[in-house]
């Protein structure tokens, strides 16, 4: 024996790696991106390309200011950029995409702490920023997003039929229109253990229950599968950093998300923004849930009631 390496236990780690998680999420996002380009053509391609380049440059810019190095750390810019692009309607002008890409990555992600410390989901916050604040800058964008020429609001029924949902002609952002593609992503991410299956499960179930109460069984089944809701269930609320840590917290978070989005879709006037605004709202409650909706630890020989002294 020449020499022994000394380190502390455990000496083995699971194969799940942070970079691998980003990579798998990116792979899962590429599929709806390809589909959107096939279906919407050049418009979708411009949105995706602009969004990715903006996110990449924003991260590099931040690193240049902070670390004096022009570089990126990992795939996270790719994930943020694609989620942002895929949730945009296909008539979104490129300057709005640039503005909210910069807002997402530079301000929400890096200026508020960076990877793992930011309290808000960058892509979702950027989407809300675009849908609420920037929507007024472009009349066409505003129309698609709130009133909707192609985007008929789901609550009023209309263009959503079962064949439309599966062939990709449903309403929603460019990446959210084909259910089959999204379901494949969901299965892939659950299989690779990147996301926790409980979050989409609880969210979809609660959404379904509230929809049944509000509009009846058949429209509820249609609405559950369509639009941005499934996309948000797969890619937005499952973001590890902005979702609760423990099972009770996850349950409350997902049920609140599903129930509120169903309710606001019916009675609110936010249109296509509903899902993302609700996701932002439940996102704000996560620190609170992490503190109060947790398991009570077993007390194995510890200090009993030490905090009360």
């Amino acid at each position, binding site marked *: 024996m020449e020499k022994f390496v000394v380190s502390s236990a455990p000496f083995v780690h699971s194969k799940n790696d*942070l970079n691998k998680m980003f990579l798998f999420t990116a792979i899962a996002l590429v599929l709806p991106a390809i589909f959107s380009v096939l279906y919407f053509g050049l418009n979708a391609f411009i949105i995706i390309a602009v969004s990715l380049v903006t996110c990449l440059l924003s991260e590099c810019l931040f690193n240049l200011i902070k670390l004096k190095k022009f570089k990126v750390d990992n795939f996270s810019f790719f994930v943020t950029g694609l989620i942002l692009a895929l949730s945009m309607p296909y008539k979104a002008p490129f300057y709005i995409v640039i503005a909210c890409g910069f807002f997402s990555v530079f301000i929400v992600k890096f200026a508020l702490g960076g990877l793992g410390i930011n309290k808000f989901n960058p892509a979702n916050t950027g989407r809300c920023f675009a849908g609420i604040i920037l929507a007024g800058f472009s009349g066409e964008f505003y129309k698609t997003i709130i009133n909707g020429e192609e985007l008929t609001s789901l609550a009023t029924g209309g263009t959503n039929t079962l064949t439309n949902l599966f062939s990709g002609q449903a309403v929603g952002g460019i990446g959210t229109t084909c259910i089959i593609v999204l379901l494949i992503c969901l299965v892939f991410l659950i299989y690779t253990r990147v996301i926790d299956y409980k979050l989409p499960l609880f969210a979809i179930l609660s959404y379904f229950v509230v929809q049944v109460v509000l509009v009846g069984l058949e429209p509820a089944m249609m609405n559950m599968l369509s639009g941005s809701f499934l996309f948000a269930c797969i890619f937005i609320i499952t973001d590890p950093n902005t979702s609760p840590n423990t099972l009770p917290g996850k349950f409350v978070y997902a049920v609140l998300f599903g129930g509120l989005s169903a309710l606001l879709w019916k009675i609110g006037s936010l249109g296509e923004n509903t899902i993302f605004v609700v996701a932002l709202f439940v996102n704000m409650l996560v620190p609170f849930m992490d503190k109060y909706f947790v398991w009570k630890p*077993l007390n194995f020989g510890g200090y009993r009631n030490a905090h009360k002294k």
Partner: protein
Amino acid sequence: MRLINLRGIKAPKIKATTGTDITPLRPVEFYNVPLKLKNVSESEPVVRVGDSVKQGTLIAKPVGNFGLNIYSPVSGKILNIFSKMNAGGEYCKHILVMNDNKDEVEDLPQIDSISDVTLISRLRDAGIIDTVSQMPSYLKYAYVGARSYKTLIVLMDSTDPNNSINQTLAEYKMEEVVNGAKYFMNITNAQFITFVFTENNYKLAAKLKKHIAESKKRYDFKIKFIPNKYPFDNPYILASLVCKKKINKNLSFLDAGITIENAETCYNFCRAVEFNKPVTNKVVTVDGDNVTRKGNYFVPNGASYQNILEFVGVEDIKAPSRLIDGSIMSGNAQFNEDISISFMTNTILVLKFDELTDSKEYPCISCGKCSSVCPVFLNPQAIERTYLSEEIEDFNRLRGHSCIDCGCCSYVCPARRHLSQRISAGKFYFKKDKGEK
């Protein structure tokens, strides 16, 4: 709704050491017998340099009431009594015995009659150590009234990724193990023995049932299965799994009436009672991807790691590797192979150096995987944060002191945070701070 069965992790590496009988280690020339073990106080030598001893001669006695009798592993001559580092990293007295290859054996006196008093004194005299609670076995029964134990759990298996001592003993020395368990039942107030197996050992359990059915003396026993997940053979978790009792500061094992023994202690106890043999050997599992002949070995007390490695063979000698005393999840890395093994050593691992395990630490992304596997329902990443910012009150509020050091959180962490290491450090340092106040 809180299910402990869903916690823990699947063992990362399948035990490669089961299925073969225990091999005795080839005799070597020198044995360095350590007189201090992990939690046990140091014993005092009763021999002098130059004395000749037989295998089984008492060479060290406890100073107070809380020590361990230590017996010579071989017949030979005492060469030296000196201070040296033991496997726990502490300096303590060692007795250097030189082997004269005469194989003279000295036994304990014959036991008069089997009663609880004689059995407990035999536990003490034979120097039997309990590797579950890591203290001399008689301390559990001698001073506190062994009759207050109503549940006797015998671990016939371990959920540890490497340790296969109990399975192997249960498979190849079943008669001794079962008889030892019977003697423990005589000591305690238990009406029956609860044998605990993991879920992949149904065959062994069936064999045990058959064995007891064929034996002349019939007695009551139960067989329980626990999930084959890693820290479930921890005594605290075993108590809550098997007996549905939560052991904590206000409810000790004694209050709950639970005593947990494993197959190895039963085997040693049986040999001490029936054959009058003191404990001079330890069964050790040698495992790891750099070992040629993996398996279980009878290792005399005081043999060094080097003796064992020479006997089992190491594949790649020149490459940097790890030598670990303990399992892959919770062992101690050793820097020196010239250290004696002791009765606390269950497993010795020789691993090839793996880049992955020393990779860079990323920021925590709060994914919650650590809290989803913690068998104590802690929130490791929150506790780690309180350790790093030295918030002692928050560390106590989140019950950082309840951590059982299983290492599951560090194992699953995708960001490779050193969670369990930091919580252990917090347990150590923050306790000290509390004492000063």
